[in-house]
């Protein structure tokens, strides 16, 4: 490569650099009329991109002059994008934010606009969901919750029918179903233990009735008991008892693999959140999906099966937005039953807004279960206020449980120890 080549390459490089500086900003959407306002909305759900496009198109049609630029980021990378977005210039006007504990750093940093009194219709939103959008220290509301998720057991109806099985209503039936599937060389329950975050979800699906749901939660929050309580230990013991029905080497199986197992019909049941519904149906339209609540194990604190629920997240307004009035208007619309119905119909998830009825039968069934036998995804809703997060500790400990390194008591003690570093009971 002689000097001429060197110069040529250098020239190319500088041209490349210069080109990149002048690259047109093509993130700007179609102009919404002259002098229109563009509101930027961020989300961690690239899977739902198309659906949101239709929602916002509806809004734009009824609000000429407003354009909504909707941007999504992968969920694992969303936190750092959001952190830089809310503090730098060029950030979003409205952003999806996580619920409960993970909301607090943004509240403390003054990044979000308090919404009390500014959004009509906040009072028509499920109180338990609103709790996830509240600042813990000042009690103000910072977001409009967008979905309620519930935890239950999904199952493959066709596979069950093939082996003459029906959804169990008692614990013995549940074990019988598992044994039958195991004998037929089908993995009864698909769990992805490699991704630690799924394990507390699985624990709730299988054991929430054992520790007793909301009464237990109230006692722990008030300081009357803690996680070493025998009821909680028993709920973890259930997981050990059921381990033979999970995939072999469950801690080596990833979450997406567990999903694949279920979708491919190699596993018959999948304990998961209601958010799985949209994913499963989009990946395999032929799958005959059903849900049931796992019956209480013998000695459970609750006599009925429970459906734990939680607020998934909310839409919040960036304190630094240049279009406060327009953002508030958009957010008010997103707190309305009209939007809630669009959301529920298109994405198959439960809206926290009153008066919204799910149109898919399965989602309606999940919502009904939650309404009749509610519980909370305990570690998410009440134990993420500090570090380490309750769900993280639980996930790690459950991995150790499945690896045989500790037993149920060890898990309970580990969770208690982790949470005790920052948790103070409130009355």
């Amino acid at each position: 490569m002689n000097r001429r080549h060197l110069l040529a390459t250098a020239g190319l490089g500088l041209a490349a650099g210069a080109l990149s500086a002048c690259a047109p900003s093509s993130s700007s959407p179609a102009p919404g009329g002259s002098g229109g306002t563009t509101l930027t909305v961020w989300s961690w759900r690239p899977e739902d991109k198309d659906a949101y496009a239709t929602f916002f198109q509806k809004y734009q049609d009824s609000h000429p002059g407003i354009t909504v630029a909707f941007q999504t980021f992968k969920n694992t990378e969303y936190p750092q994008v959001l952190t830089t977005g809310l503090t730098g210039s060029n950030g979003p006007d409205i952003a999806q934010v996580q619920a409960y504990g993970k909301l607090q750093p943004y509240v403390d940093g003054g990044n979000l606009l308090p919404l009390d009194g500014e959004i009509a219709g906040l009072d028509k939103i499920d109180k338990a969901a609103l709790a996830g959008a509240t600042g813990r220290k000042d009690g103000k509301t910072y977001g409009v919750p967008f979905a309620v998720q519930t935890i239950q057991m999904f199952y493959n109806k066709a596979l069950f029918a093939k082996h003459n099985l029906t959804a169990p209503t008692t614990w013995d039936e549940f074990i019988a179903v598992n044994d039958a599937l195991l004998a037929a060389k089908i993995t009864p329950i698909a769990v992805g233990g490699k991704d630690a975050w799924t394990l507390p979800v699985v624990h709730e699906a299988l054991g929430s009735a054992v520790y007793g749901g909301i009464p237990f939660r109230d006692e722990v929050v008030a300081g009357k008991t803690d996680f070493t309580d025998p009821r909680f230990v028993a709920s973890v013991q259930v997981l050990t008892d059921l381990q033979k029905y999970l995939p072999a080497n469950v801690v080596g199986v990833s979450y997406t693999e567990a999903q694949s197992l279920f979708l491919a019909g190699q596993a018959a049941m999948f304990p998961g959140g209601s958010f799985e519904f949209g994913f499963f149906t989009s990946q395999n339209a032929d799958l005959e999906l059903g849900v049931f609540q796992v019956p209480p194990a013998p000695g459970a604190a609750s006599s009925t099966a429970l459906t734990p629920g939680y607020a998934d997240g909310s839409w919040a307004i960036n304190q630094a937005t240049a279009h406060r009035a327009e953002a508030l208007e958009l957010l008010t619309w997103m707190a309305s039953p009209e939007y809630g119905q669009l959301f529920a119909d298109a994405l198959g998830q439960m809206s926290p807004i009153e008066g919204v009825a799910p149109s898919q039968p399965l989602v309606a069934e999940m919502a009904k279960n939650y309404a009749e036998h509610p519980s909370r995804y305990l570690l998410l809703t009440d134990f993420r206020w500090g570090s380490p997060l309750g769900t993280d500790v639980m996930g790690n400990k459950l991995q150790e449980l499945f690896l045989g390194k500790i037993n149920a008591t060890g898990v309970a003690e580990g969770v208690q120890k982790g949470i005790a570093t920052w948790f103070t009971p409130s009355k």
Partner: protein
Amino acid sequence: MTSLTTTPGVATTPTGKTIRPRGPRVGRGVVTVLMSLYAVVAIGPLLLMVAGSLRTSADLFANPVGFEWPPTVSSYVFAWQQANFSRYFLNSIMVTVGSVVISTAVSVAAAYAIARSQSRLVQIIESVFLSGLMLPIHLAILPVFYLLDSLHLVDNLFGLTMVYAAAGIPFSIFVLTAFFRQLPYELEEASMIDGAGAFRRFWSVMVPLVRPAIATVAIFRFVPVWNDFLYPLVLIRSADRYPLPVGLTSFFGQYQTNWSALFAGLVIATIPLVLLFLLATKQIIAGLTAGMGK
């Protein structure tokens, strides 16, 4: 990375190729087998990746190892269309080429100064650059973001290019200084006698002599910049300004159970580097082994 000169006096054939000692026949056979074995280990997983991309996902689930004939390129079509890879490609090329050119250019000049100056101040500056080798730069991501924000360079490929250019300077200077230090003074002295100024000496005499080092440095900077995914994540917002690695991870996020498409995406992301390496290996190896013996 040190460069080591071949000494005068190394046995050479009339054509200038160095004679290398060879071991006994049997031993060499074993060695060749072992080398080939490792080559399989080195390349095996990558071949599996290519093989996987040429099958359907359903097939992959049913039969992880194994191959169906005929291969199908449907996943490539899918990945290319769904993921806007052509756009990501272009962005990666702009950013990578731009940053490598800038960092190499300023580093060559700086390395020359360091190698040819006796000043204490310059030595201190050299230490500052070299300490840059040890800075965990991906831990400074927030301040970098705020810096670019204040310069209005967020979501701008030029800003990203400058960050990468700066990050490449310590390593480039490290290598180039070593090369420069090896060059004999005579050539410059000769041109000084001819009345050439510092820049003339630099440009006409020294730079051509370190061409192999320049090529080496360029390649070793090209790869990490092309493959970086952390900085663009935070510094680039618009999806159509994403460079390839970021585009790839968001593609992963959306199609995580479509293994065949994932493999296809991985292959597409890797091909350019492979081609570049194949083209430039000759340069690099020449640079590392030939030295300045001429």
